[in-house]
């Protein structure tokens, strides 16, 4: 809202300098955007919150200043002499669309002389960015900028039979506005029409056909009240925002129509002459009663934590326009002014009091009682996870929750249903809620690749959105990783996290070799608990890597953190160590390529029994010259230890022998001696 300092002085005389007034406004609810000098006059740009439509006119802003500086507010009296001819004798109004237009009033002025406005008047409008058109249109704009009520003047000769119909637009009905553009309307929009067609798009913009021009002699002055929703919808849909729609969207004073209409007639007569017909054509004569609200003295203190003198509270509310109907030492009953439709409850009144008193009065050293508060298990778990990831060389990224269509958008290891999408994309082309973090991580790796940064390891912890039937989707917190070449890098990170967070609970995990279509065949592994997937790791398929232009082999994996948390054991417990020495035995087996560690390990564990504390994988290597093609060597170490006695080497030998026999039997493994 642009406020002319000079114009404002019509309504309130302030001694305080501009800066002081501006500061006071800012600290009482009218935020100061800027002050500019236009044609020698300071013009102040104030940010008016959407609940304060009363401040979308100079009088409303002046009222604030008058209350803040205890200066009287002068509101012009819209008085004029009417001729005896009644407006109703030549104009009629039929309101067929009360949901969108609760009240429509029309006044008639005859015999005006349309021409330019006087300079002082035009200058006021120019200073706040309103382009002067002619004296009649200028007055309608002036009054809107004075009181906040939009008005419209029609050339009465263009209103067929003087019959105004407020109605729904017909679908696809067209209308040429005063901006010379044609708009296609729909049946939810309200038009001001005559028998021929729309004259104005109600509350938004007038029509070219009936606009006031140099040749206009008789005027119909509209002052109406349009419903905020209806106006907002129309303005949005047509991308036609006007000072008028802006004010109606914020709800104008329903009792302000008459003042504005009279003020408009008064000024037109002053500027353009003419005679004002008697009375008003009114679709619904009514006085809207302001909200009845009561205020308890004790409540002011309860909410604010400070004592405001009761007399001061009362005075502030009265100055703001509230009518006190009953006052005791402990309670006020009052009626809020209709230009302040935001005042309907006690809490609203308390806000009025404190913003005028000033928030400075509220101390910033009130007592805050102590309560217990602790880190959640989830925060502790996340701390562990992040520490492991960072220690393993993974940088954390955060990526948008929505992804676009592309080579990777079908990566969805957690759910087979189609992804959810938003009606408006988050970023260009990105309207799909991701079902996996991997597409984002691939994009992140690609970005770095394009900057010639290779071998980045990245992780993200964020929700994925898994549709499930008709209800709210499942939001699953995932830990996603991407790394160079070897999936064991990611698997190792997951194993470390699991070991730290689940402890011995990892024994519940069942490992399965899996194939997902986005993985290179034979590289995928997944962990399940009670048949539900906890994590997966693998290599991105060469086809996908190629189509998404990723260079080199890429390992990817995800871990379900909700499931991880559900079994977290965040405080490790002591396990008593065996006091007897352990015997380590290295074994080097030659096996077929097809033999997998998982199977071999199981065989060893079963054969070795409980004296075998650990089977540690060391490495795989190949010596085709000695072993022939299709063979590999697996080197591993057994830790053999008893909790009851010192083992003799013969016991260890026997155990190792049974391991070798089992591996020979089940995997055709040859021990390399």
């Amino acid at each position, binding site marked *: 809202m642009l406020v002319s300092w000079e114009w404002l002085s019509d309504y309130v005389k302030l001694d305080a300098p501009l800066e002081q007034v501006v500061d006071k406004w*800012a*600290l*009482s*609810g009218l*935020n100061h955007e800027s002050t500019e000098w236009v044609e020698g006059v300071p013009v102040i740009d104030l940010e008016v919150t959407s609940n304060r439509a009363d401040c979308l006119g100079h009088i409303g802003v002046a009222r604030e200043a008058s209350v803040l500086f205890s200066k009287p507010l002068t509101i012009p009296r819209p008085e004029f002499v009417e001729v005896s001819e009644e407006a109703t004798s030549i104009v009629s109004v039929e309101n067929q669309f009360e949901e969108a237009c609760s009240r429509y009033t029309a006044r008639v002025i005859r015999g005006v002389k349309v021409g330019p406005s006087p300079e002082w008047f035009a200058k006021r409008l120019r200073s706040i960015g309103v382009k002067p058109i002619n004296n009649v249109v200028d007055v309608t704009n002036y009054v809107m900028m004075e009181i906040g009520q939009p008005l419209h003047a029609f050339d009465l000769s263009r209103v067929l039979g003087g019959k105004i119909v407020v109605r729904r637009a017909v679908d696809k009905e067209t209308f040429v506005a005063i901006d010379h553009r044609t708009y296609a309307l729909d049946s939810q929009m309200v038009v001001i029409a005559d028998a021929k067609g729309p004259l104005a798009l109600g509350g938004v913009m007038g029509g070219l056909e009936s606009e006031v021009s140099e040749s206009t002699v008789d005027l119909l002055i509209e002052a109406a009240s349009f*419903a905020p*929703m209806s106006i*907002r919808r129309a303005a*949005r849909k047509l991308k036609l925002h006007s000072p008028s729609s802006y004010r109606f969207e914020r709800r104008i004073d329903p009792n302000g129509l008459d003042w504005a209409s009279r003020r408009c007639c008064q000024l037109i007569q002053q500027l353009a002459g003419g005679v004002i017909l008697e009375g008003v054509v009114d679709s619904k004569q009514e006085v809207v009663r302001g909200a009845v609200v009561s205020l308890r003295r004790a409540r002011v203190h*309860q*909410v*604010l*934590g400070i004592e405001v003198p009761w007399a001061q509270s009362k005075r502030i509310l009265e100055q703001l326009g509230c009518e006190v109907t009953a006052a005791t030492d402990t309670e006020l009953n009052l009626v809020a002014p209709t230009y302040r439709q*935001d005042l309907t*409850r006690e*809490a*609203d009144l308390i*806000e009025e009091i404190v*913003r005028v008193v000033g*928030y400075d009065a*509220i*101390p*910033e*050293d*009130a007592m*805050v009682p*102590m*309560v217990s*508060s*602790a880190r959640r298990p989830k*925060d502790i778990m996340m701390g562990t996870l*992040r520490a492991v*990831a960072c*220690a*393993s*060389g993974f*940088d*954390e*990224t*955060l990526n948008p*929750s929505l992804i676009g269509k592309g080579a990777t958008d079908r990566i969805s290891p957690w759910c087979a249903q*189609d992804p*959810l*999408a*938003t*009606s408006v994309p*988050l*970023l260009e082309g990105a309207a799909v*809620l991701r079902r996996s973090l991997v597409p984002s991580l691939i*994009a992140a790796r690609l970005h770095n690749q394009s*900057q010639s*940064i290779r071998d980045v*390891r990245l992780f993200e912890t*964020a*929700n994925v*959105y898994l549709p499930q039937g008709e*209800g*709210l*989707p499942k*939001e699953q917190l995932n830990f996603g990783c991407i790394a160079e070449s070897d999936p064991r890098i990611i698997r190792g990170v997951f194993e470390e996290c699991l070991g730290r967070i689940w402890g011995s609970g990892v024994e519940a995990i069942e490992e399965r070799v899996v194939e997902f279509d986005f993985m290179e065949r034979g590289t995928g592994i997944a962990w399940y608990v009670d048949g539900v997937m906890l994590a997966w790791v693998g290599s991105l398929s060469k086809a996908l890597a190629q189509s998404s232009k990723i260079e080199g082999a890429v390992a990817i994996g995800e871990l379900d953190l909700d499931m991880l948390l559900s079994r977290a054991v965040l405080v490790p417990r002591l396990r008593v160590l065996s006091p007897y020495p352990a015997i380590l035995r290295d074994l080097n087996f030659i096996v077929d390529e097809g033999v997998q560690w998982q199977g071999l390990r199981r065989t060893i564990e079963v054969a070795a029994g409980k004296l075998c504390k650990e089977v540690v994988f060391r490495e795989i290597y190949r010596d085709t010259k000695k072993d022939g093609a299709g063979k590999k060597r697996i080197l591993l170490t057994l830790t053999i230890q008893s909790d009851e006695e010192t083992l003799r080497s013969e016991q260890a030998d026997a155990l190792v022998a049974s391991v070798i026999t089992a591996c020979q039997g089940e995997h055709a493994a040859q021990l390399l001696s």
Partner: protein
Amino acid sequence: MALESFYSAIDGMLADAQACLLGVDSPEGVESMRIQFTGAKNGALKTIQKLLGTVPAEDKPAAGKRFNEAREAIEQLLLQAADRAGGKPKAVTGPLVDPTLPGLRPRMGVLHPITQTLEHLKEIMGRLGFNVTEGPEIEDEWHNFVALNIPEDHPARDPLDNFYLSAAKATVPSTGARLLRSQTSTVQIRVMESTPLPLRIISLGRVYRPDAPDATHFPMFHQMEGLWVDKNVTMAQLKSVLRLFATSYLGGDVNVRFRPSFFPFTEPSVEVDYWWNGQWIEFGGAGMVDPNVFRAVGIDPEEWSGFAFGLGVERLCMRRFGITDIRDLYRSDVRFLRQFAS
């Protein structure tokens, strides 16, 4: 030979070497001592090494360790004596250690600056007694609007100002509009619906609003929301908690300023500024929980009162780390991310 005897033989030799080398003052003298003690044939060390073979098997590891220590000690003594005698250091052959080479620095990852900020906020608010809570990012209109006193005709509900989920396939009957939450205040509602009073919570997370991305706007960002509901919670306590927070976060003595504002879910509503380093800094919005919000979740506003506040995490993060373009936070460029190692 018993272990003890072996040890005393070593001790004797070491004492001997120390005494002999003390009097040496020429390179020739040092060389003869070297032969006497470390000579390959009849050096004193060789003699001791032979004794090692006679130590019982189970004591061998300990004895061997002690022997190695003795050898190193003698070599040290010889070096020191050579230094004193001023002889030329022996020309070294083979690869040289370059102690000026850079260290073998572990390549550790770095936490995202937003994560660091979120954790920092949780820590400070935790000390003030606020527990962390969470809620879903995909919300229904009840939690995102209705219960927050945002009526149907409020501009905040405009479909163009929100990320509504597009209707799923025609075969799935509509179950009410869903949208990506536009504020973390939704969590207030969920917590008040499910948690006994009093409560003091914060919720942090992603929120979504259609905004064309530029240096200060991104359609996805993070908020921290705080809520305290108890008997007799006042605006003075709101101001005080925010001051304690700011003093902890920014450091030094910080003052708080309230400016009136308008939010549907609080009344009175204020914008909060901090006076810090000689200027007012915008912090976020706050206010006393609107009675309509309490009623929406079945709390009697006559019995309970409370305050709520919300702030943009990105702004705090960017100010802290000197980041000037919000979009950099979501580009995953490791050159950017690795700057914030801490």
